[in-house]
């Protein structure tokens, strides 16, 4: 015998439609809600910036750190999803060693976990076949959303994808949080990237903090003129969160103009300066910077070799192959 509420929600078309709407439109709000609660638009400037510390990870050769996300990404593609989660566990070891601040942990959690959850959700809805067993079948009123419902097979496939997302984000963020931008540029150019790409990265990392700083100033200026960007205190209340999101969307053109104009204004002058300093005049250029190879680098390389050998073994024996 069904409980009347269950009967309504899962065996009546109105109830089923309400549940389907919730699955389709409330779940995707988890990402923005986590963002508003734990990062906020003002926290953006901390997302992709270097955090100065003295840890073995910080001291590693920047070239190793630049190759690390690539290596981990390749491994995650070769391995099955269960082993990819094991690999994800291994990528947490550097995080333990570098002990990030709570602000960074919070941001890290949001920008890594929220996309992973959304990946599982979207694959659960859309990576389905007619033969899959559905956890919840969408009623006919939801035909227009383009899916028959939420399937177990889709969720499992989503978990596969999420594993790769988690592993790659975790590895890439180690690079971003622990490597000075100048070292990223140096490593990129030393790894034989063209001069133009090196300069583009250099200019990017040089001006990214300024861009966020400027965004922050422009937002303050808009607030001084009466615009309200205050994060809602009771963020779980839909009305407040909706009002905040609406204000943010309406403010986008307001904020974009001064930030964009400010950035573009200097571009011509920057090009003049680069040309006057003989940029791209010769095919090769001298390198001012010299990096010493240390014990930490040898240990990191050995650890990577060990992981690589493990992955090769799993793939060769057929245990961990995707």
């Amino acid at each position, binding site marked *: 015998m069904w409980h009347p509420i269950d009967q309504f929600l899962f065996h009546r078309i109105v109830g089923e439609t309400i549940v389907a709407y919730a699955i389709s439109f409330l779940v995707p709000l988890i990402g923005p809600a986590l963002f508003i609660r734990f990062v906020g638009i003002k926290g953006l400037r901390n997302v992709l910036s270097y955090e100065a510390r003295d840890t073995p990870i910080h001291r590693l050769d920047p070239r190793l750190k630049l190759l690390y996300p690539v290596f981990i990404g390749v491994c995650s593609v070769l391995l099955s999803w269960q082993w990819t989660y094991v690999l994800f566990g291994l990528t947490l070891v550097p995080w333990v060693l570098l002990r990030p601040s709570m602000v960074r942990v919070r941001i890290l959690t949001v920008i890594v976990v929220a996309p992973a959850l959304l990946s599982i959700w979207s694959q659960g809805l859309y990576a389905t076949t007619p033969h899959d067993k559905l956890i919840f079948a969408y009623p006919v009123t939801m035909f227009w959303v383009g899916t028959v419902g939420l399937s177990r097979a889709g969720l499992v496939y989503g978990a596969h994808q999420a594993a790769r997302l988690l592993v790659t984000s975790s590895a890439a963020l180690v690079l971003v949080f622990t490597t000075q931008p*100048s070292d990223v540029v140096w490593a990129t150019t030393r790894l034989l990237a063209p001069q133009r790409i090196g300069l583009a990265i250099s200019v990017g990392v040089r001006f990214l903090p300024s861009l966020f700083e400027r965004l922050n100033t422009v937002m303050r200026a808009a607030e001084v*003129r009466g615009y309200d960007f205050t994060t809602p205190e009771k963020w779980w209340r839909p009305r407040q969160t909706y009002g905040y999101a609406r204000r943010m969307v309406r403010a986008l053109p307001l904020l974009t103009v001064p930030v964009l104009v400010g950035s573009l204004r*200097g571009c011509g002058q*920057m090009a*003049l300066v680069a040309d*006057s*300093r003989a*940029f791209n*005049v*010769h095919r090769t250029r001298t390198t001012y910077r010299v990096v010493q190879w240390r014990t930490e680098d040898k240990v990191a390389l050995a650890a990577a070799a060990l992981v690589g050998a493990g992955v090769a073994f799993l793939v060769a024996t057929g245990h961990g192959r995707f």
Partner: protein
Amino acid sequence: MDAEGPPRGLPGGARLRAAIREVGYEGVAAPVLAGIDLTVPTGELVVVAGPSGSGKSTLALALAGLIPQRIGVGHWDGDVVWEDGAGDVTDLTSLPLHEAAQRVGIVFQNPEFQLIQYQVDAEVAFGPENLALPRQEVVARVADSLAKVGATSLAGSAISSLSGGQKQRVAIAAALAMSPPVLVLDEPTSDLDPVGTDDVLRVLHRLCHEEGHGVVVVEHKLDEVAPYADRVLLVVDGRIVVDDHPRAAFVPTARWRAAGVRPPELVALSEALPGTFGAEVALCVEEALVCLDGCGLPGDLGTEELDDPPGQPRAEALGLDRVSVRFGGKVALEEASVEVGEGEWVALIGANGSGKTTMGATLMGFVQPASGHARCFGRPVAFGKIPEQATRLGYLFQNVDDMLFCESVDAELDFTRRNRVPTGAAPPEPSEVAELIGLEDRLLAHPYALSGGERQRLALGALLTRAPQGLILDEPTTGLDEAHAAALFELLARVRTSLGSLTCLLITHDMRLVARFADRVVVVEGGRVALDTTPRKAFAQVGLLERCGVRPPPIAALHAALAGGDPGEVAISVEELLALLGASIAVGGAHVASD
């Protein structure tokens, strides 16, 4: 500070020569430059001055070989050549840019867009690396260039962590790393505080007289640059109308005023007292002191005549009560207390990083104090509640471009009403504000089509549409030339007259602004209030101000030096000092009288 002997390290006779018959921009009938015949030898510091739009910056670009190849002009008829002193003559206008930069380096106004790399040494090394010089040579050039600008200790610093003055010195070092005998700088100090300005000017002076470089600097801070100059040019309507040693170039000052350029205060004083200064023109306080000392002036210059009227007790408008603010581990404010009365205009002055802006930011609710309380018109300031705070208090940012969002002047002034944002009591009509800020005939213009000074006035007008009870103005005159600064001063005077009850906190390095508008001066040092008194009394405390990284106006510094010891109060304008000197001279029986 005249030239001391021949330049070192460069062949004698090396020089930059420009013969520009006419340069014009497309669609503009009048030539931007005409009849220019200029020679800049190595070892000489040449200052180029002139009103806005006179062609100074175009001249700088032409001297660096950027016109006409890299910066297109409608019409170019001229030659810019480098003569190396050994008989070789190179036409800069036909050289690739990096070749020209190895003869004449250029440094622009805003260091932000000249620094491409993340770290200082990488920035300076960028040019030599690109030239594919041997590594030892690159290392040597980096070390040498940083040493020349006194920035060796900054080699490993991130550029984003530097002050404006430090950034500009790094930009100069990066240009020097290309090894040019001549440097051209286009308003290199206009965004810098007095300490940063002095740092840069000292570096330029040293580059000329110790390293033998030729330096051309376009500058409008004539009080500051005059003591360092070997030659001064006045450019008006695209022509050089004055080209002389600074002692001769600024006289008669009427010619400079007619061109819309304010001559140095001490030159104006020298000219007004021909009997005292004779044929001499003082360019720095020490020189003026020597001339005035010889006149047998009494130590007492009658400063009682300058006594500021005792202030009326006022109700508190803005207040900081033992406020401490920390950013990470860095102390920005340490138990700082300030009170601003209703209708009072108070100036916050101090070196960069002293805590002035943090005080303003705390009052606005931008930052949260670690301890203490901030009050605004009888209410505690709540951190982060800026829109609410902004109904009582307006904040003019240093870079006003950050405050302008709309597609026209009209839309900016109507922003408050259109977005239904809360206002103070009885907000004025946008048209009233447009008239007040003098932009009533430019309502349809895009804000970015306005000049810098007009944008400044528009941003201020936008704040006034919310009818605030108070204003915080953060460096409102930075980057403005003399004409625009004067227009802003007039606007502030009108605002003060028409909104008599308006309270104003001025955060500034501009002592003209302080002298003209401040009822009271608060000097901030290391996050603490070091002095809180009237401008005349504050500027008399030369020793204390120097310790706090503040430079009083030259006239005030001269008065303090003349009076010796603690004069109590000093004159803050040429006219005031002249009046006092006239009285004193009569008392002392000297043979001169004020003009």
